[in-house]
């Protein structure tokens, strides 16, 4: 066996280890109920804005606190708290993808992605990272 082949094998082995370990980084899509099983762990939740319920954002009180209600794919409604400014046009969103975790009965999210109906079929807006 050539020296290069040995080095290659070592590198490939290392790469496989890294790639396997990075699977632990990947999040999963959950519902509020399944995310609640492990409070504090980060998940993605896909849902729809409950337009009848209050959207609470008062920049005068706190420009970094926005709360609203979302119905997840399983049909459960939960309060969601976003630590940031209220995303523009969230009222018009068709679908919301939130990254965050469950905590004391509400979902704390630090990233919101919205799909809005627009001239593009799949126009998306990301409102990022509060933390």
């Amino acid at each position, binding site marked *: 066996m050539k020296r290069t082949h040995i080095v290659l094998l070592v590198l490939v082995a290392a790469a496989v280890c890294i790639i396997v370990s990075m699977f632990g980084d990947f999040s999963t899509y959950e519902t509020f109920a399944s995310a609640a099983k492990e409070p504090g762990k*980060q998940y*993605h939740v896909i849902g729809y804005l409950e337009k009848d319920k209050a959207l609470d954002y008062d920049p*005068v009180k706190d*420009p970094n606190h926005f709360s609203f209600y979302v119905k997840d794919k399983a049909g459960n409604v939960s309060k969601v708290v976003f630590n940031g400014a*209220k995303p523009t046009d969230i009222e*018009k969103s068709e679908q919301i993808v939130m990254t965050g975790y469950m905590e004391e009965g509400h979902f704390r999210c630090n990233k919101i*992605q919205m799909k809005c109906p627009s001239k593009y079929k799949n126009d998306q807006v990301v409102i990022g990272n*509060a933390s």
Partner: protein
Amino acid sequence: MDQAQFIGEHLLPGKLGHFFAITAFVTALFSAISYWRSAQTEATDARSSRTWLLFGRNSFVIHSAAIAGIFIALFYIISNHLFEYHYAWRHSDLSLSPKYLLSCFWEGQEGSFLLWCIWHCVLGLIVMFTAKGLESRTMAIISLVQVALASMLVGLYFGPEFKVGSTPFILLRDQMQDAPIFQQPNYLSMIKDGNGLNVLLQNYWMVIHPPVLFLGFSATLIPFAYTIAALWKGDYQQWLKPTIIWSLFAGASLGTGIMMGGAWAYESLTFGGYWAWDPVENASLVPWLILIAALHTLIVFKATGRSLIITLILMILMYLFIWYSTFLTRTGVLGDTSVHAFTGEGKSIYWHLLLIIGVLVVLSAGFLIRRWKSLPRVKTEEAINTREFWIFIGSFILLLSAIQIIITTSIPVWSPLAKAITGKDVAPPADVVQHYNSIQVWVAIIICLLSATVLYMRFKTTDNKVLFKRLGITAAIALVLSLIIGFAQKISTPQYAILLFSCVYTIVAMIYYAITVQKVKLKKLGASTAHLGFGLTILGILLSSYNKEVMSINTLGMYMDFGLKTKNENIRESIENVLLYKNVPVVMGEYTATFLGDSTSDTDPRVFFKVQYTRQDTVTKEVKESFVLYPNAFANPKGQEAGSMSANPSSKHYLTRDIFTYVTKAYDPKKKVEDTSQFKSHTVKEGDTIYINKGYMIFEGLDGDVKDPRYIPQNGDVAVTAKLKVYDLKGVVDSLRPVYYIRDNYAYQVTDTFSEQHLMARLENIVPEKQSVEIKVKQSDPDDDYIVLKALIFPYINVLWLGIIVMVFGFFISMWNRITKKEKEPKKNFNGEYTFTK
């Protein structure tokens, strides 16, 4: 609809355009077949081969003309605002400024493919004249790819469900057949204006970024085509020089294109940075990384005859990933994971692109397998202290890095499969940036260390004594420098401290090498310049992101208890947005920020928010620096998005850092109703106080001496003014003198205002019997005017931009060197032995 006649349509440019599209497709196909025949008959029948070659050339020239025709037709339609065409209606409007007309091309999918086609034609024509013995094979591949691209533009419909490509010349009434408006012959008179160009694209970066990026995409085809041609012919000598040159060109242009995207993101998007590991960015970074790896192994092959197989594989992979990235970004398969807006064209383009990728895979793999046994291999082992050994390792690590990026980026592609097997619905990492950084930082460290060390080595044999002496000196200087920088910048995380050393090491090594080894001969400096640029880029990334600082920490003391463990975590959790009331200064880091108001104009849909920053000496209060930033927000005037706001940042650039601000929330001044507040009546006696927002007024009595310029005295007038002193919390700020006069038995008032506090006072009435006056006060609530602002500091971001420029410059020096270098005549029969070349 065929019976209906429509008024005012211009159908000719569209018909011409569509005709050109079909022509382009057919001629590309004909060119590919001719070149293929030419290559096949080369050995057996020289005359027939020559004839086919001429056929191929002519077809490609006609093809290029047809592509130019498509461009001109579409440009005519857009610039003349022919809204009967869907493309013009959807991507432009009457108010679009001429400099953005070209941007309409890359907003839509058809236009992007067209741009790609145009660059292929330009590069293809150059290859046609320069490729010599490899022309027929190289051009056959280029033409074949042109067939694939042109098929994206033909827009042939086979039944309602199945279409091939989509033409940019489709009429609005055909695109939206169901809308009742199109039943009317004069429908065009009702379509006053187009939908307009996405506001984010109305930016100078967006005028230059897509053409350069697509030039990079197109340029990658050439080394790929040469590689296939080499495999096809079984000649691995002739392709070397052009492939190295074209790889350098592709590396430079694709790299520039990618980082121009970063610069655009930095200048006009609000994700607060130049790189977000967004899938679209990754999709173009991955082929670039593989291309760089391939370029390095190619140079190894040229010098030593080793690493041929990995070069071939890398070149092929690189080009397949170009199409894979097109697949990721164009089909909407990325779905929820990307910031970028996509035109999901549905199933047809999905299968179309998969088919193209499939053809490319079969073609490349076929050639590789056919030649596998006959590929020249070097039997001996390379020594550890040689360039070829370490370049090979470095290239392989670049490949692994690309694989890691593509696995995570492709989560939406493979997650359905993973769900079927494991039952888990895999999503991207919760913190994407952290995920990539934690892995790629090690790649950057290894590549930095390698790129510096390898250049000190030589191909085939290296004098260890000289090598270690040079490495030792470099490492010592780098260590001292990185310790200084590390302490000054407080870089304490171990992996980033190592990264700091690595990139400083690269920078030192490249300068040292350029001076002592290459004696600053510019033509020879390509490699060291490019690697110096790489080192600077990494240093810039490290410094600007490690010490990226959020300046807009909410210092008003208003923060929520988020139930986190420590107070600091609670504070940091969210308060990166600061609320600025109009004219109320807020301390932000060493600056005081004051929101001064907004400015709008009728022609520009943007609203500019004026924010003044001042820096004072903490002791003397002397103003050291003062500047105004204009972060703006765009109120979309048209379409279903009408009224929505999207923000663009504004930055103050210093040599050593940038202050980057954007508005996260604002009122819409165009919608704001003027004067919602009402006058409030106060009946007061002399010396009484009237409370106002943020202060009070004292009525100091009446005065018969009226000096208001708005009051012109006439005979018989009775006029008085009320003396009002306005106080805020600190003291007297203004005095108001509203006027009251009686003329011809009628009472008139002249209101006085104190604009800074939006305060209006009017002496409404005088009640002599009670010795009092009625004063009406109106103060529009200044709290209406606020913005929520986010401000970041990027230190030393200029090092990053400088690094990119230096790196690209290095690519071009190398190219120049390779183009002008006299090559020795390639050996007729390659036997695996090379003479030593430096």
